[in-house]
């Protein structure tokens, strides 16, 4: 029984490896998203600051409006924090990748 030697012809790639479509704006879009999220967070933060300032200067009419603004700022900060954690995690995962 003849066993043919392993040659160049025995390993034929069935398909050309596909390259991801070049998207030059990929980084920019991601940066935009992060920027928008941060803008939303700073907006919530600013409204909380404003509410606390109004309370401190005696101009606040409703206590619940102040605490609600603070709660919203807290929540949006947590949202940004979680996003940041996920992004850092993904970055570290990529950096650990063996080349």
């Amino acid at each position, binding site marked *: 029984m003849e066993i043919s030697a392993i040659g160049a012809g025995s390993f034929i790639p069935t398909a050309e490896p596909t390259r991801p479509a070049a998207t030059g704006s990929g980084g920019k879009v991601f940066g935009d998203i992060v920027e*928008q*999220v941060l*803008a*939303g*967070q700073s*907006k*919530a933060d600013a409204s909380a600051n404003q509410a606390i300032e109004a309370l401190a200067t005696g101009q606040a*009419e*409703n206590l*619940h*409006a102040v605490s*609600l603004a603070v*709660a*919203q700022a807290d*929540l*949006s900060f*947590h*949202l940004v924090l*979680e*996003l940041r*954690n*996920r992004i850092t*995690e993904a970055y570290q995962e990529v950096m650990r990748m063996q080349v």
Partner: protein
Amino acid sequence: MGFDGLFGAGGISSSGMSAERLRMEVIANNIANAQTTRSPNGGPYRRQDVVFETVLGNHKQGGQGVRAAEIIDDPSELPKIFNPGHPDADADGFLTLPNVQIPVEMVNLMTATRAYEANLKAALAMKQMNEQALTLMRS
């Protein structure tokens, strides 16, 4: 971009709490003036009540909370007592008192407190829901 869309229910609850606070103020004013026989309009104090109206958003959002439309005077009859010694008594010695009934006001006060609490609970539930959704992001 803001996170206003995320906190829509919080704003609605806040408007409810503001409205109930105003109702509480009106009730407190009624109680404070339960014996007042002189008012700017002449005659004794008239009991006041607050009328609420719904705030409409666009057709997708539905109602966007509540606001106080107006404060109205209670037109019910003013009680009279015989008290000829009082300076505001009429020629027959009858004194006209405000139409404020303290038991009714106390019940209204309790209702306003409970309604405020209910709005607070709704805001708290909204906050908890958002926090629970955030835990999805934690691995």
